[in-house]
Structure formats: structure tokens, C-alpha cells
């Protein structure tokens, strides 16, 4: 036995290239497997119960309103549930539930090691996991929106032709919002260990409080852009109780868009600008998160240390 000694270590002393893959191996297969594995993880989680509860809650709320106030116009009900309650409460919570566990779950369950030791760049690993999470979230949101619209319009006398485009637009807006929230919360989950607390505070203060203030600060919220997209693609006109021939623009009133002095909302971003802003927010937060993830160490607690 010789004592510890400084060895003469020479760089690149191994001349067989280490990037020889096994026969029939490809990086695309690895990436697809990460995506599929993450989808399967989402299916096996207990989050389903919470999400199912959210779906039932929305449809249940509609049923309660229908039972207690049968005269409420369907459009008003649609506005209150699909464009007030869902974007401001359900979508951020759904995104928070899924995106907060994007990396943290695997880290806590110590299965992240099995992904980190594969021939997959870390940035791609994060991006694929996020993409699978977005797929799950969007599918859930589409189902949630459909269910809510069925509860609102079923048996109300409104034709399917009339409702179908509204459902399609609502599902698209909700999907875009949940994608943006997922990307943001994915980034937050890498910045803090208390993702749920920070996420809930963000939803309450930022998206809840600031988005409802009629100042420029609301331009920094997701809710503002989703509302603007909804306003520019859908109408929420409700007949006035005193004069049913005249209509009240519910969205403009509640969302504090000054349509009297600015009927075309030219002072507000146009539809394509809203889309670009939200997609840019997704892209930037994903890029930052992917960089953070690729530079981060994920130290595994060994049994002796834990």
C-alpha cells in the first residue's frame, strides 16, 4: 500500500472518444422518453384529485347560481365564471400545483439522479419536463373550460353554433394563460424552495391586486393581457334591466377599460401585442429557468446524511 500521493494527472489521457453511443441510440429517443415519463408522472400523482375538485367547483358554482338566480343571463354567468373566477383563481393554482413540482418532486423523491446521469443536456431535460407539464395543464384546462361551458349553456336555449366559437376562444385564452403561469412558476420553483408560498403570494398580490388597478402597473400582469385578448375577441354585452333594448358592456366596466373616451382601446395593446407579450414572457422565463437548471447542482442526500 502506498500513501496518498499527488498523481501525475494529464488531461485527455484517454484517447477513446467517450461520445461513442451504444448501437441504435439517439438523443431524440432520450428526449422523447423524458417527455413521456413526465406525462406519466403527472398521471400518477395525487394532483388529479385537486384538479378534479377544481373542475367540479366551477361547474358546481354555475349550478348554484343557476338554482338561486335563474334570470342571470348566460353571458353574464360566462363572464363571471370563465373570465373572472377561472383566470384569476383556478388557472394560477393549477399551474402552481403542476409547475412547482416540476423539478422539486423528483428532487425530493430522489429520482432526479436517474435523469441527470443520462446523455441529455440539462437545459433540454428542464425544457422537456416543462413541455410535458404544459401539455398536461393545457389538456386539463381545455376539459375544465368545456365542462364549465356545458354547465353554463346546457338547456339555456343558446345554439351550439353560437356557443362553439366562444368555447374555442375561451379554451385558447385559458390555455395561453396557464402556459404563461406554468413557465413563470417553473422559474420561481428554481429560485426558491418555498414555491407554493411565493406562488400564492404572487397570485394574490400581483395577479389579484395589481391587475385590478386601473394603472400602468397592470401591464406587468398575465391577467391584464388575457382580459384584453378576451375583450378583443369576445363580447360580453348584457341587456340593462331597466331598458332591455340597451346593453351594458360588462367586461369594459368590470375590467376598467375606459370605452367612453377610448372606444377602440387604442391606448391598450392590440391583440397581436398581447400574444407576443405573453409568449415572450414564456420564452424568457423558460430560457432563464433552463440556464439556471443547467448550472445547478442537485445534491442527493445519502441515507447516512439524511
Amino acid at each position, binding site marked *: 500500500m502506498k500513501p496518498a500521493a499527488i498523481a501525475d494527472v494529464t488531461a485527455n489521457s484517454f484517447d477513446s472518444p467517450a*461520445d461513442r453511443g451504444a448501437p441504435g441510440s439517439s438523443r431524440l429517443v432520450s428526449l422523447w422518453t423524458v417527455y413521456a415519463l413526465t406525462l406519466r408522472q403527472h398521471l400518477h400523482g395525487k394532483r388529479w384529485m385537486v384538479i378534479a375538485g377544481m373542475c367540479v367547483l366551477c361547474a358546481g358554482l354555475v349550478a348554484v347560481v343557476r338554482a338561486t338566480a335563474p334570470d342571470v343571463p348566460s353571458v353574464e354567468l360566462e363572464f363571471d365564471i370563465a373570465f373572472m373566477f377561472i383566470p384569476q383563481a383556478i388557472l394560477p393554482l393549477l399551474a402552481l400545483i403542476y409547475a412547482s413540482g416540476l423539478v422539486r418532486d423528483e428532487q425530493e423523491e430522489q429520482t432526479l439522479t436517474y435523469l441527470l446521469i443520462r446523455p441529455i443536456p440539462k437545459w433540454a431535460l428542464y425544457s422537456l419536463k416543462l413541455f410535458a407539464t404544459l401539455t398536461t395543464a393545457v389538456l386539463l384546462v381545455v376539459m375544465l373550460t368545456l365542462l364549465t361551458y356545458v354547465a353554463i349553456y346546457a338547456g339555456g336555449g343558446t345554439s351550439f353554433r353560437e356557443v362553439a366559437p366562444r368555447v374555442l376562444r375561451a379554451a385558447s385564452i385559458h390555455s395561453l394563460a396557464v402556459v404563461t403561469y406554468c413557465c413563470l412558476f417553473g422559474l420561481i420553483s428554481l429560485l426558491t424552495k418555498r414555491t407554493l408560498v411565493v406562488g400564492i403570494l404572487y397570485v394574490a398580490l400581483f395577479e389579484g391586486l395589481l391587475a385590478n388597478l386601473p394603472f400602468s402597473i397592470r401591464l406587468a400582469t398575465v391577467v391584464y393581457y388575457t382580459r384584453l385578448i378576451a375583450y378583443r375577441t369576445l363580447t360580453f354585452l348584457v341587456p340593462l334591466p331597466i331598458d332591455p333594448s340597451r346593453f351594458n358592456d360588462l367586461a369594459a366596466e368590470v375590467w376598467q377599460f375606459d370605452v367612453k373616451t377610448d372606444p377602440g382601446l387604442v391606448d391598450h395593446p392590440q391583440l397581436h401585442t398581447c400574444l407576443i407579450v405573453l409568449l415572450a414572457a414564456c420564452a424568457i422565463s423558460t430560457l432563464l429557468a433552463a440556464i439556471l437548471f443547467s448550472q445547478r447542482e442537485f445534491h442527493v442526500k445519502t441515507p447516512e446524511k439524511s
Partner: protein
Amino acid sequence: MTETSDSKPIVEFHGVSKWYGNVIGINKLTLRVPAGVTGLLGPNGAGKSTFLQLATGQLFASQGQVRVLGQSVWNNSTINRQIGLCPEQDAFYEWMTGWDFVYTSARLAGLNRPAAKDAAARTIEAVGMTRHQGRAVRGYSKGMRQRTKLAQALVHDPRVLFLDEPLTGTDPVARHDLMTIIQRLGSEGKSVVVSSHVLHEVQSLTPNIILLNHGRLVAEGNVRDIRDLIDKHPHQIVLISDEYRKLAGRILEWDDVEGVRILSREQGLMVETRQPDAFYSRLPALSLEDGLAIKEVYSDDDSLESVFKYLVNR
């Protein structure tokens, strides 16, 4: 490793330190691990897992350079095609079956469907899990879980294998089987780095060892020299069995056993012996005796710790 100093190293650490805040995991470590089977030995907290996490690119060295097969490992995913890791933590996608877990590992390594199926079947067979491959991992015994972890490390046919305490908590039969598999991998030309805090385990696998303690390289070389030191200290081995009292009676009949202490709470016993090799070699047969099934064997490393203290302070 004087006998292999000419060969190209598989793993190279050059002045490597790793700190976790104020805690030192690895301290200015310089060494070269040659091809073949190498034992990474040290008591709990010696830095073995940190060493393996640095070597597999999971951790970034606070100082120094880590190279595997001549390449830097940090953020170098390409090298992972050539590396297999059997981690210490008992973590799985519990909802998967054993087959699914190994097959998914093959796919994560980039194997296409037919290749992944072949590789998973071959590897599961190699670790003796074919009969149980359809069951969910959550229902596996410790030994089955260790075998399955080993299978996922082997499934993409890596050139270098890092096994972190692969024998911990296994029953004597699984322990024997796993050791046979590791020896076979070595004879097939794979380079294997096996960490353990039990000298006996490592000695059965390879004469080449690296001794770590408190993140430092204490010694490297032939295991026989270490054994001379360790045999001066009684070796403590814990056996867990439902029939631990009956087992104690049988074990006390052996001449090389110096003492047996009953551990009622753990339903086991702690055996003291100065001839651990002879003791371990008789365990599989004893475990197969009627009603004496030994569920778990592990070595209390207090005795090993004293040897490390001796090595460090001499």
C-alpha cells in the same frame, strides 16, 4: 495503484475539493482510478458518495478537475453514454414495474425500442430479476431493489460503472449474487468503481482499493495490506432475522465468533469476529437452514472507523 500506473486512468481527480457551505465533502483529492474493478472504501461521511457524484457529473468541483475517460464530466451529457451509476439512495418510480423501470432507463439512455427491449430483457436476466419483472417496484424487497438499480445502471452497456454501496441492506443470497455479477462485469472488461464502508465486501470483489476518510485520500493500493490492520480490530456484523435468538445459538457454535449481542428492538444480533471472511462465507448456507432466514446483513463500521483513525494518525 502501482501495478496499473502505466494504464490509462478511467477516472482522474486532480486537486479536487468540494465544499457544502462550511462542510468539506472532498478535500484536495488527487488520484487516478485505473481500468478494472476498484473498491472505494471509507466510513460513513468519508466522502464516497460525493466522490461518485463528482465523477458522474452531478456535482461541480469547488476546486480542481474531474475527468472520466479523459473528459470533463460537469455539464457534459455525452459522457453519460459511457457511464452507469447505481445510486445509494433507495429511490425509484415506485409505480413502475421492474421491467418498465429498466426499459425506461434504456430509452432514457437513447436506445430505440427494439434495442431497449433486448437490453432490458438481457440485463434483468443478468441480475436475476426476470421472474419478478412484472411486479411493481414498490413491492420489491431490498435485495430486489438493489438488483433492479444495478440493472438500470447496466442497461445501456456502459464502459464505466459506479456502484454506490450496492450491497447495503441485502440478504446473504442477494449479496452473494450481486457480488458475482460485479465480479463478472470486471472479468468482461468493464471498469467498475464500487463504494462500500465494509472492507470485507470490497476485498471479495477486487484487491485494488482507495481509502477515503473525511474527504481525504488516506491510502490506495492492495487490500491485503489494509486487512492486516483491520484484523487487529474485532469486526462487528449485524444480522436481522425473525428467529434471531435461535440464530444467535447457532452462531455461538462457531469458533471464530467472539461475542454475540441481542438487539431485541431490531429483531437481530450483533456478532463480533476477527475472521469476517470465514464468517461471511458461512452465512448463505446458514440463511437457507430451516427457519433461520436472515433478512438483512450489515457491518457496523465502528471497527473500520478505528482503523481509519489509525491510518490517518500514524
